[in-house]
């Protein structure tokens, strides 16, 4: 039993923090926020790929770094803390994980080296309409190896080179890999609550595609991909939530009201203690998810759902109570509070919202014969 990062992993995490403090200060995040024509920070993306992070868990034979998932989790925590405005989650937590775990040898050969080098940017296109996703009810369809339909919103869909698209074919729901440079594809960027990450509407009109995994297994496959990604997202959430607590504490220690720093009032002290408690519980659940992901444990579905729920709740809470602690200043554009308020919602929705994950969790517990 060992329930913490190892010394080597802590070292890697410290190095990642130093790197991001230099290369991804909040001005870099604002560079994307304030420039409508800049979907992400390309310089940072190439630097991150150069560090070997996009290929962190990709084996060396495909150009990757060959690290484990715990190391990737440590990197994810730092990227979340830094609000990195790059398509890392879509490419690494979702696309690369899916290809690594469920792709054919040919698909791995074709895509993983590009992910490791930063040339390939991936995305996951599932949503078609408002409301919770049901893969059985997809309108997108594949006939004779050609995909048709519209997906919206697709995180990083406007900048991605490749997509995994959920669609139905004669065998039922499936997942299909699409080269977005192919024919019949139209993309447009759409405005979202978090402009530091880009999002698109993608339409496919008879676009060539290739199946991921076995025919008719789309629902199970998507579920497994979401579980893996949820753990990695949870580390970004834990990183962001921790940063919010740092901000809130710093402000509470410098802002005076009624002749005292506001951090000396119990109303603020207890609020910050509440954030701390939620953050620590979320960290513990994320660690458990990391272990399940890294070791291929059978408990991954419940571990991932718990990490997802705790991570989403902790980050949303920390972000909005950080803003509250800042008072009126917190509701200005120049204060950084809204950057986390936005990102917390972005991370909390991109893989499906809390109602979906709570239901996934309870169904898993029921299937475990927990009764």
């Amino acid at each position, binding site marked *: *039993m*060992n*329930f*913490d*990062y*190892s010394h080597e992993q802590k070292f890697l995490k410290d190095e990642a923090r130093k790197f991001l403090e230099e290369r991804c200060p909040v001005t870099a995040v604002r560079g994307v926020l304030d420039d409508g024509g800049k979907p992400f920070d390309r310089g940072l993306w190439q630097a991150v790929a150069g560090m070997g992070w996009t290929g962190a868990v990709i084996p060396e034979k495909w150009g990757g770094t060959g690290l484990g998932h*715990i190391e990737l989790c440590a990197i994810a925590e730092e990227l979340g803390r830094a609000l990195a405005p790059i398509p890392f989650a879509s490419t690494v937590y979702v696309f690369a994980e899916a290809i690594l775990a469920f792709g054919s040898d040919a698909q791995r050969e074709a895509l993983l080296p590009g992910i490791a080098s930063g040339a390939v940017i991936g995305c996951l296109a599932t949503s078609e309409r408002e409301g919770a996703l049901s893969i059985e009810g997809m309108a997108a369809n594949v006939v004779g190896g050609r995909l048709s339909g519209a997906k919206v919103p697709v995180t990083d869909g406007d900048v991605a080179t490749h997509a995994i698209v959920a669609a139905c074919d004669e065998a039922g729901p499936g997942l299909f890999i699409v080269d977005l440079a192919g024919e019949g594809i139209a993309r447009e960027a759409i405005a979202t609550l978090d402009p530091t990450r880009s999002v698109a509407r993608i339409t496919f009109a008879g676009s060539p595609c290739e199946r991921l995994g076995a025919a008719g297994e789309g629902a199970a496959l998507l579920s497994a991909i979401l579980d893996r990604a949820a753990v990695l997202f949870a580390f970004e959430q834990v990183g962001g939530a921790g940063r919010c*607590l740092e901000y809130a*504490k710093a402000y*509470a*220690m410098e802002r005076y009201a009624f002749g*005292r*720093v506001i*951090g*000396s009032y*119990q109303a*603020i*002290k*207890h609020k*910050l*203690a*509440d954030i*701390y*408690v939620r953050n*620590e*519980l*979320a*960290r*513990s*659940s994320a*660690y*458990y998810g*990391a*272990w399940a992901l*890294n*070791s291929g*444990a059978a408990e991954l579905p419940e571990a991932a*759902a*718990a990490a997802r*729920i*705790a991570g989403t*709740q902790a980050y949303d809470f920390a972000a909005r109570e950080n803003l509250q602690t800042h008072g009126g200043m917190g509701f200005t554009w120049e204060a950084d509070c809204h950057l986390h308020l936005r990102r917390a919602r972005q991370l909390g929705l991109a893989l499906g919202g809390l*109602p979906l*994950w*709570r*239901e996934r*969790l*309870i169904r898993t*517990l*029921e299937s475990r014969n*927990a*009764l």
Partner: protein
Amino acid sequence: MDFNDTPEEAEYRARVRAWLNANAPAARGVAHGHEDSESIAADKAWQARKAEAGYACITWPREWGGAGGTTAQSVIFNEEESRLGLGSAVFGIGLGMCLPTILAVGSEADKARFVAPAMRGEQVWCQLFSEPSAGSDVAASRTRAVPADDGSGDWIINGQKVWTSGAHFSDFGLLLVRTDPDVPKHKGLTMFWIDMKAPGIEVRQIHQADGGSGFNEVWFTDVRVADSQRIGEIGKGWNVALVTLMNERLSVGGEAGPGWRALMELAASLPGVEGHGSALQDGGFREKLADWYVASEGLRLTRLRSLTALSRGETPGSEASIGKIISARHSQELAYEALDRLDQYGIVANGDVASLAGGFQRNFFWGAAMRIAGGTDEILKNIIAERVLGLPLDIRVDRDVAFRDIPRGA
């Protein structure tokens, strides 16, 4: 990061299981406040058997009779023992708080005298800190110890303690008293051990809000103690108390009574609103159950993180305070939900705490107690804010005032 046992841990677990299968008595499930002489005798016998086999106080040093084992071994044994429903509160305060204090700051004579008998379950300990006017503000203790005027060096103690778990069946107690009211409150305290059968001590069980009587008032009238019973220096009692309280936060905090699994089981057995399926199929219930599962698991895993720090020789921080903030509130919330799902029947008293409904009804009351006992929610949040986050201490008007001059209520 690894949740699997190492080969050594797996071997130890197998050994523990085999030993428990051969030696463990049947679980009795006696709740706090419902101990009787028979249940206490059974708990003592079980403790003695564990001690004999090297499974009591696994991490304590060998020189004092402990097993000199690792934190991981201790966790494994506790997991396997509690799987059989054999955890007992009778020794929790002694072995979890009082004896660790004696091991840390007691004299060699005290250690030689007390550690082994406590570990074998022969002697039960209680903790005499809280007073009617010193609850959250425990350093405001008024119970007085004054030097005897016969030149013997003994101390004479007068006053009253309250909320003392198990005082009515304890052999010894750890007693915090005021030896100097002329200095600020934290500086005038001294710690003693005390024989609970000494003349002048009277134990009165408290009639609790839930009808039970697990806590006591302990009255001291001219109780004479020898100076050799002092633990630590005169006036340094607060430092000793902090050692005890630190251990308290480590040992309290596990969830008591029925948890998410029991609630899930109960809901599956009850009809849904207006007869649609079971209560477990109700969307609102499922959402809450998911959140409780997540918090409960988060808490269990956070404890494992603290234990990891311990096993690396690091001191776990005040994050241990998280445990009770979450678990006490949890017990209360789950109990209210269970009673809501029982609907009108939720109000019908079910005295069988082993039943699902009875267990939740007990926690309807006990949750309220747990949010207060061992540090209120509010005090624990202050501890996190001040000691973990480093926020300013509350303004204290009594800090630099002689204890006898501090304003007080009636």
